[in-house]
């Protein structure tokens, strides 16, 4: 095992936010082992949460992740409501659903764009990011910020969606749907993308069960879990949508699931905007009470689960946060071994490890412990392979 850590570009990269450090051990072209060192971004949030009130914790957990910034408050407020037994007003539940689904769209589009970048398909990257902007604009109208919406509170939501905004939102949603279906088609029937992603980085169903992966990664391997369908919360039991499951477990099915889910999300948002009843948006839950509660939410990357224990004061006694990537990232060890290094960046990215952290990889040769490639080289290798496939096709 290589013990030396030689980091050519460091776990930081100008492009990315969350540093993780992947090491691949290679023999020739094949990856024989992989290792990951996280903790470059450990901020001790679980401990910090114990020093802040329930009201303030919502803002704290929102800042765990910049992309899925609704999923953690969503799970946290549900855990707090599980303790206190608060009934959330119906309108608030619809607004929560809308925010959660909008976030899914923008997160999936972001991933598709980055994955496109990794396989050297920059058109997809530019398209996905272009069409993500309208979603962020919607957020700015609803919540007053492009990210970190600050919409959630224990017992309801902080801001109402104004009646006069709804026609505009519906129109914007229609636009987004058009983009999404165009992008889905563009990715699904592009022969280059198919050749590049099909049959690569397969996560077998049994492995997926053993590793307890969640979200799109699990659904791509044929495990039917979707918290929105299984334990309906918020307004998910009042809207129609499909659970998208694929059997192959390769990179292509993971991409397809994410793209198809964006269209489902658009459907959910449209139904919610139309069905949303009038009424209060906040149950004004001041007292949490004593007890313990669990909140779950299907974030773009999978199930988020928060466990909160309250001792009757304003501060939680213990707050356990489990982000989906915590379960999903270990799975890359099973998928990447035996593959060629030019696919490694793509396979690791396919897990969507909360901002593709693939640019922080180093390839280490088994015999000499020397760093052969940096993360950039891996992306370049990945892009070159696509070019080759493209060349063969024409």
């Amino acid at each position, binding site marked *: 095992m290589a013990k030396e850590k030689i980091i050519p570009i*460091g776990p930081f990269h*100008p492009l990315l*936010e969350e*540093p993780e450090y992947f090491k691949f051990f290679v023999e020739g072209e094949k990856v024989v082992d992989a290792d990951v060192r996280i903790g*470059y*971004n*450990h*901020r001790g949030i679980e401990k910090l949460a114990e020093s802040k009130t329930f009201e303030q914790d919502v803002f704290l957990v929102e800042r765990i992740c910049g992309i899925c910034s609704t999923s953690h408050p969503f799970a946290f407020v549900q855990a707090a409501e599980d303790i206190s037994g608060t009934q959330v007003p119906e309108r608030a539940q619809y607004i929560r659903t809308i925010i959660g689904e909008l976030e899914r769209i923008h997160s999936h589009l972001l991933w598709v764009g980055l994955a496109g970048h990794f396989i050297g398909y920059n058109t997809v990257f530019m398209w996905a990011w272009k069409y993500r902007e309208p979603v962020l604009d919607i957020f700015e109208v609803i919540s007053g910020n492009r990210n970190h919406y600050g919409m959630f509170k224990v017992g309801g939501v902080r801001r109402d969606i104004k009646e006069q905004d709804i026609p505009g939102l519906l129109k914007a949603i229609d636009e987004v749907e058009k983009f999404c279906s165009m992008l889905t088609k563009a990715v699904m029937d592009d022969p280059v993308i198919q050749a590049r992603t099909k049959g690569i980085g397969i996560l077998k169903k049994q492995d997926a069960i053993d590793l307890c992966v969640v979200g799109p990664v699990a659904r791509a391997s044929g495990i039917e879990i979707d918290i929105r369908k299984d334990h309906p919360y918020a307004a998910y039991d009042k809207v129609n949508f499909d659970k998208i499951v694929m059997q192959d477990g390769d990179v292509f099915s993971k991409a397809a699931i994410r793209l198809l889910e964006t269209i489902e999300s658009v459907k959910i948002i449209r139904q919610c905007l139309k069905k949303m009843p009038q009424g209060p948006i906040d149950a004004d839950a001041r007292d949490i009470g004593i007890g313990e509660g669990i909140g779950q939410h299907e974030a773009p990357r999978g199930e988020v689960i928060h466990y909160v224990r309250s001792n009757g004061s304003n501060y939680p006694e213990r707050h356990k946060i489990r982000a989906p990537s915590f379960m999903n990232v270990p799975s890359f060890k099973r998928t990447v071994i035996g593959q060629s290094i030019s696919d490694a960046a793509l396979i690791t990215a396919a897990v969507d490890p909360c901002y593709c952290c693939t640019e922080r990889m180093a390839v280490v040769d088994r015999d000499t412990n020397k760093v052969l490639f940096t993360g950039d080289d891996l992306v370049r290798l990945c892009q070159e392979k696509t070019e080759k496939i493209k060349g063969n096709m024409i």
Partner: protein
Amino acid sequence: MLDCLTPRHDVERFGITLVGSPRHADILLVSGIVNRQSIEKFRHVYEEVPKPKLVVAVGVCACSADMFRDSYNFVKPVDEIIPVDVYVPGCPPKPEAIISGIIKALEKIK
């Protein structure tokens, strides 16, 4: 931060582009807190950037480590580790604010 590179805000029209390695960079954008584990690596990245260099702290986490000041894993804010030229507060700042922050940094050079 990536938003600045994409069609809507496209910073390449100002001649700003993303490079793959700190060795090719002139401006370093810091976007988060630096913890105990990453502080050495972070200093290393800063030293790799060739002179003259500018450092822009984007977001309140990079400016002052906002909520994470009290964390056991936090050592000191970014501007006590390396010199920072321009601060862009915001959580997160709008892409327009980041662009104008970078432009301000460029003005400082002149």
